[in-house]
C-alpha cells in the first residue's frame, strides 16, 4: 500500500515542493545570520515576515505588480529594521524581549491591516514558475530544480553571495569583528553601531522579503498569522547552521522537506493525519539536538545579544 503510493512522481513532487517551502525560511535565516554575526539577536523576525507578507500581498492586489509587491516588502523591512536596530543597538534593550515585542506588533498589525484594508481573502497573483529551456525539460532534475519561481532562485542565490560577503569582504570581516569583540573593533576604528544597524536592517529586509515569498510567490494569499512561527524557526536555523550560510540552507531545506512531506501526506493520504503531526515535530526536535551539538563544538559570536556600551 505504502509502496504503491510512494511512486517516483510523488517523491519528486515532494522534493520539489520542499525546495519551494524552504524559501521563506532561507530568506529570513540568511538575514538573521548577518545580525547574529554582528552580535544582535533579532527575535522579531516572525513579526517582520508577517508585515512583509501583508505589504507585498496588499501591493499586488492593488497594483497587480509583483515588482511593487517585493518593493513594498523591502520598504517595510527597512522601516522595521531601523526601529529594531534603534531599540537593540542605540537603546541597548534586552534583545530576547524586545524581539517578542516586534513579533506581537507584527502579528497584530498585519492582521489589523488585513481586516481593515482587505477584509475578505482575495487571491493575489504570484510569481510564475520559470521555464528554463533545456534545464526545465530534463527528466527528474528539471522538475526538482528548474521549475521554480524567481523568488526561489533568488533565495538560494543568497547563500553563496552571503558566504562570500561574510568570509571574503572587508564588510564581512567587520561584521564578524564586532560580533566577537566590539571593544577591539572600536579600537581599530570600526563603527560598531553602524555595522550593527546595517546588519539588522539587512536582516529585517530579507525577513520581510521572506514573508513576501510566502504571500506572493508560494501561496498567493494572506491570512492572520500566515507565517505560523516560521520566523522563530529561522532564528534557530542560524544556530542550527552554525552561523554559516550553507549550514543555514541545510536547515531550511530540512524544514521545507518535512513540511512538504506532511503536506503530501495530508493530500494523498500516504501518512495518516496523526503521523503528520508527529512528523511536524521532528524538525523542532532535530533543532534542539543540533543546538546541543552546536554549543559543544561551535562557538557562537562572543558578543551575541550583548549591547555594546562604549567606555565601560
Amino acid at each position: 500500500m505504502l509502496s504503491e503510493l510512494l511512486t517516483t512522481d510523488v517523491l519528486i513532487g515532494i522534493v520539489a515542493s520542499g525546495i519551494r517551502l524552504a524559501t521563506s525560511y532561507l530568506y529570513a535565516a540568511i538575514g538573521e545570520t548577518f545580525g547574529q554575526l554582528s552580535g544582535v539577536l533579532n527575535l522579531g523576525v516572525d513579526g517582520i515576515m508577517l508585515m512583509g507578507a501583508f505589504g507585498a500581498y496588499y501591493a499586488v492586489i492593488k497594483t497587480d505588480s509583483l515588482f511593487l509587491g517585493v518593493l513594498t516588502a523591502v520598504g517595510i523591512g527597512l522601516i522595521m529594521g531601523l526601529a529594531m536596530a534603534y531599540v537593540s543597538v542605540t537603546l541597548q534593550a534586552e534583545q530576547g524581549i524586545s524581539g517578542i515585542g516586534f513579533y506581537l506588533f507584527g502579528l497584530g498589525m498585519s492582521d489589523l491591516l488585513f481586516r481593515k484594508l482587505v477584509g475578505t481573502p482575495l487571491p493575489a497573483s504570484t510569481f510564475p514558475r520559470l521555464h528554463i529551456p533545456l534545464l526545465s525539460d530534463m527528466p527528474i532534475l528539471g522538475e526538482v530544480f528548474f521549475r521554480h519561481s524567481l523568488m526561489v532562485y533568488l533565495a538560494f542565490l543568497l547563500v553563496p553571495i552571503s558566504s562570500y560577503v561574510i568570509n571574503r569582504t572587508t564588510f564581512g570581516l567587520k561584521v564578524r569583528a564586532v560580533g566577537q569583540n566590539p571593544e577591539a573593533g572600536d579600537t581599530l576604528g570600526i563603527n560598531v553601531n553602524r555595522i550593527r544597524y546595517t546588519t539588522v536592517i539587512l536582516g529585517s529586509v530579507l525577513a520581510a522579503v521572506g514573508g513576501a515569498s510566502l504571500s506572493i510567490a508560494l501561496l498567493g494569499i494572506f491570512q492572520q498569522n500566515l507565517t505560523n512561527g516560521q520566523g522563530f524557526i529561522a532564528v534557530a536555523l542560524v544556530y542550527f547552521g552554525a552561523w554559516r550560510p550553507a549550514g543555514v540552507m541545510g536547515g531550511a531545506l530540512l524544514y521545507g522537506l518535512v513540511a512538504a512531506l506532511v503536506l503530501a501526506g495530508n493530500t494523498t493520504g500516504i501518512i495518516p493525519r496523526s503521523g503528520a503531526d508527529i512528523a511536524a515535530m521532528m524538525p523542532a526536535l532535530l533543532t534542539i539536538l543540533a543546538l546541543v551539538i552546536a554549543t559543544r563544538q561551535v562557538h557562537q559570536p562572543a558578543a551575541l545579544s550583548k549591547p555594546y556600551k562604549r567606555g565601560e
Partner: protein
Amino acid sequence: MPSLLKRLPLGAIVDVLMPVLAVLGALLVGALMLIALGANPVEAYGALLEGAFGSANAIAETAVKATPLLLVGLGICISFRANVINIGGEGQMVVGALFAVAVALAVPNLPPLLLLPAVLLVGFLAGGLWGGIPGVLKAYLNVNEILSTIMLNIVAVQGMNFLLRGAMIDPAEIEAGTRIPQTMRLSPAADLPVLVPDTRLHLGVIIALVLAVFVYIFLWRTTIGYRIRAVGHNPEASRYAGINVKQYTVLALVLSGAFAGLAGAILVFGSESHRMVTDGSATGFTGSAGFNGIVAALFGGLHPLTTIPASFLFGALLVGANKLQRAVQVPAALIGALNGLVVIFVVSTDLIRRRLTQRRALREPQPESETRPPQTESSHAK
C-alpha cells in the same frame, strides 16, 4: 539607614513611572493609528473601557481573561529574576492542559473535591516538567533557553494536535464523522466553580491571586527565592557564595513552566465549553497568553504583586477590544499590536531607568556585599 530612606522614593517613582509612560506611549501610538484608520480615538478608547469594566459581566470577563496572564506572568517573574528568558509559556500551557485533561478523562468519576485539585496539580506539575527540559539543557548542556523553549513550543503544539485528533478525541466526533479535534465535555467534577452567578468569574481567578502573594513571599521571604534572585543578579558571586547555580537555573524554569501549565489547565476547566479544542496552532488554544503573560510581568516590573494590576490591565484591553471593534469598526487585532508596542517601549525605557539608578548609585556608594541582589530592585515592593 537614612541613605536607605533617601534611596526609596526615587527608585519607586522611576520603577512605576517608566512602565506607565510606556503604556501611555503605546496608547498614544494607538490613537494615531485609530485616526489613520478613520476612527475617533476618544470614542474607541471609551468603548474599550466600557467593554472591559462597563458591567459586572464585563469585569468578570476581564478577570477571567487576566487569570492566565497573571499565572504565566508569575512564572516569568521567577525565571526573569533568575536571568532565564522563558519564551516557552505557550508550550508549557499546552502541556499542562493536556496532562490535566488526560487525568479528567481517565478518572472522571472522582468526587469534585478530589478531581479538581488533582487536575490543577497535574497541570502544574506537567508544565513544570516541560519547563524543566530547557532548564536542564541550559544548565548542563549550555543550550540557549530562548531557542529551546521556542522549539519545545512547536513540539507541544504538534503533540496537542496529535492527541486531540487521536487518543483524546471525542468519540462522538468519530461517530458523526466530523472529526473536529476536541475532547468530549470533560467531567463536571473538574469544573472550576463559578463564584458569581450569571458570570464566568470562576475559582481560577482567586487561585491566581493567592498564588501571586505566595510567589511574592517565595521570592523575597525564603532562602530559595533569595538564591534564585542572587543567581540572576550575579551568577559568579553566587557560585562563590556556595549556591549551586545550575540547580537554581533549572528550578527557575521548572517553576516558570509550572505556573504556565496551571494557566493552561485553568483555561480548559474554566472554559465555557469545558473541552479542550485545537485549531492546529498554539494561539488557538492559549490566545497568546504565553506571550502576553511576559508583557504583563514586564509591565509589572517583574514583581508578583504589581503583576496583578498589570494582568488585569492587559486582560481589560483584550476584553474591551471586542467592544472597540463593534463601536468604531477597527479590528480587535489593534490591541495585539499595541501589546507589542508596550513591550518595546518598556524594554527601551530600561536604559533610561538604568541610567537614573546608576547615577544615584554613584552618588551614594552602597556598602552591601556583592552577592546580595540590590535593594533597589525590590524597593518599590516594601
